[in-house]
């Protein structure tokens, strides 16, 4: 009788461990999936850049410096492999594109060009999606880190070799929005 109770307790414990294990894996997949969403948008932006540069060149061919800057950031984007490299290249490209659009302000004909207007909206759209994807990645990372650092998952995360994931540093002024505090779940450096 006693051994039966012990057996039942062991089975229940094992089932519980399985569910915790699955939760850790699901949360890990979640933040990795969030990362690939950022990647998709970064690639999309990089694909739009040559078209934009061509259009701007048609009206402002002599602004060589900014074109080179954009090209360099795009190259860095293509060569980036780690999370940090790609984040750095992405910030470089944001800055370069920002300057390109600032220069475009001086060319009224360019601003009225339909293709340019379309590209401008498309790029600000992508810029926005990148910002949201990063915010979301950080949310997912925070949930994952909280999970593997608290009881009960912390007992399994160690043997599974799970390390806390790294938050993305989102550049200042990337999205000019005020901070919101939601009690015990503050947004990570958004």
């Amino acid at each position: 009788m006693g051994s039966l109770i012990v057996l039942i307790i062991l089975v229940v414990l094992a089932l519980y461990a399985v569910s915790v294990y699955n939760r850790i894996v699901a949360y890990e997949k979640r933040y990795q999936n969030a990362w690939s969403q950022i990647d998709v948008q970064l690639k999309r932006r990089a694909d739009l850049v040559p078209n934009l540069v061509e259009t701007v060149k048609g009206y402002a061919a002599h602004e060589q410096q900014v074109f080179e800057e954009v090209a360099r950031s795009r190259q860095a984007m293509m060569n980036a492999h780690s999370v940090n490299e790609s984040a750095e290249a992405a910030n470089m490209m944001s800055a370069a594109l920002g300057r390109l659009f600032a220069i475009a302000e001086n060319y009224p004909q360019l601003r009225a060009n339909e293709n340019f207007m379309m590209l401008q909206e498309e790029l600000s759209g992508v810029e926005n999606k990148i910002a949201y994807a990063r915010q979301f990645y950080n949310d997912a990372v925070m949930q994952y880190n909280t999970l593997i650092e608290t009881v009960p998952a912390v007992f399994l995360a160690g043997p599974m070799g799970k390390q806390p994931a790294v938050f993305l540093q989102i550049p200042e002024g990337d999205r000019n929005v005020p901070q919101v505090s939601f009690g015990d779940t503050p947004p990570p450096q958004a």
Partner: protein
Amino acid sequence: MSDAAPRLPDRFTEPTTGRRIDLLGYQAANRRNSWLLALVTMALLVAIAYLLAQVTDPGATLFFVGVALLIGAGQAVAGFWFSDRIALAAAGARPATVEEHRYLVNVSEAVAIGAGVPMPKVYVIDSPAPNAFATGRDPEHAAIAVTTGLIELLDRQELEGVVAHEMAHIRNYDVRFMSMLVATLGALLVLRDLFLRWGYFGGGGRRRGGRDSNGKGQGIALVVLLVLLVVSPIVAALVRFAVSRQREYLADAAAAWITRNPEGLARALEKLRAYSGPRLEVSEAVRSMFFVNPELNLNATGMLATHPPIEERIRRLRRM
């Protein structure tokens, strides 16, 4: 994908009231209530059909109950499977194409990424009145519709706020529950109208020829029937309004969380408050689904208000 799809935190404290909100529990309750509502509706319809048969022709009880069950089942199925198409058609919405509405599509996609929901289908309604609504039975089959007036009136952050509000309704399964409620109300109204029409035309003669011995029982049944037919649509409507009001605050809070920008949504509400152009003409059944009441009585209070007063919504957002 859907299993591992990232989500918002499942629990958070609503900033203004300090109330703990358990979103998972809230979603589960919404799904449970949807089914409960369908059952109650069925029971009510059967009761009405039974009484109707007692009053008119007790021999046809089975037939009446059968018809009522068919109407109820039809409404429930329609509410569950076709509510999105019905609502979109009722509002005169057409699909938004990337070419024509690049801005709206981009904003929706960005907010969907931030909210961690699949990209809903996006529709536009050709109307200068700024408004929006969401529909669909679950996040995988959801749609949001936005008027052209809203796109023109709002800047990017404000539009993000409104779209995020609608996505919150989708995520919380508010839209499923609401469409089931609308379907319930629809079924009751159909029955009431059928009965009234029958009372005017076919009924009178047959009742005169009925068995007199049943007179008293019939009288009671008739009274109960009339009370049910008159009262239940009113109760259904009141429940719908109350549920709708309470959900708006929660969707506002969730939108602020998704965009990390309560000010955007607050400014959008302010602009909508200041709007005084033509109204959006939509049928009564879908009115409470909209972002603000299409009738534009934005500060209505009390049992018949479909939305909380707009001033209070703005005030709560500003306090976050």
